[in-house]
């Protein structure tokens, strides 16, 4: 198989774009798996993200953010080339509250790709994958980036790395 430079670059760029920038950085998760159409991540417990101060349970917004990130990354990975995938809609069912002081595991899987839409499902769990906290389905628009835009993303990424290194 021919070595695909863009595909080789995809994983580190995705990891950097998701984990080190903006809200991804604030959430503090780690992407543990990137395969085509499948992304997993792990997020540690953080008392700043609590939604119910009486129980210490994290807010549902955190679960949505993690699932949206994970499914979005899975959607991007499914396209096989540099692209963006804005979320069209997301539906989430909460099965039970998250246990405080324990990490949350999230997986996002693409189950169908069409020429314009990517369909994903996601799952969040703690101790037992078969007893999930939440389940979601999300659809993403498929927008292929041309070379120029992609090089712009890479450039801005390098610029950010440089500015951090010199800080």
């Amino acid at each position, binding site marked *: 198989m021919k070595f695909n430079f863009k595909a080789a670059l995809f994983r580190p760029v995705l990891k950097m774009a998701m984990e080190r920038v903006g*809200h991804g950085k604030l959430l503090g998760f780690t992407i543990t798996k990137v395969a085509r159409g499948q992304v997993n991540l792990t997020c540690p417990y953080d008392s700043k993200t609590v939604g119910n101060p009486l129980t210490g349970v994290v807010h549902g917004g*955190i679960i949505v953010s993690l699932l949206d990130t994970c499914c979005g990354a899975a959607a991007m990975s499914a396209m096989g080339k540099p692209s*963006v995938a804005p979320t069209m809609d997301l539906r*989430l069912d909460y099965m039970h509250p998250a246990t405080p002081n324990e990490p949350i595991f999230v997986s996002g899987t693409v189950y169908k790709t069409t020429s314009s839409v990517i369909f994903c499902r996601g799952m969040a769990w703690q101790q037992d994958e078969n007893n999930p906290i939440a389940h979601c389905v999300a659809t993403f628009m498929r927008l292929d980036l041309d070379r120029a835009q992609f090089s712009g993303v890479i450039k801005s990424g390098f610029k950010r790395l440089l500015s951090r290194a010199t800080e």
Partner: protein
Amino acid sequence: MDDSAVGSGIESHEQLRACLLAAREQDRPQLILDFIPYSGFIGAHAKVDEGDVLYWLEPRRSNIGNPSLPALHGGVIAGFLELSASVELLFGLRLNSMPKVVDFSLDYLRPGRLQALYASCKVLRQGKQLVNVSITAWQVDIELPVATARCHFLIN
């Protein structure tokens, strides 16, 4: 459970009730947001505006999802709308305990720019156990919504 780490100062149901009562008496829904640590995490605020509660999310670099646009993170928008809906129930429906979210459905209509995001909630149906809330978010013009969401909560 490590309540001290939460740092919101609310440790018992009595304190929670007192806080909710104060918020309603002073017409300050912000007091409810203040005891939910997640609201500080994303920078959410609320005030009473012409009889309704207006929620807003301050623009923060840490809420960005796509740095090249830059656009707000879809998850932050979702979390903010869900938070707004739960405060709407605690403030407007006079609930005395935290509502439990059952499901949440969100349609993204436009990218959220790095500027204030506003939201308003409408309780479409309140039953004995279940409440349905509809939430709309916009930035510059209320006629150009960024996202709409609906949410089911279990109460009591």
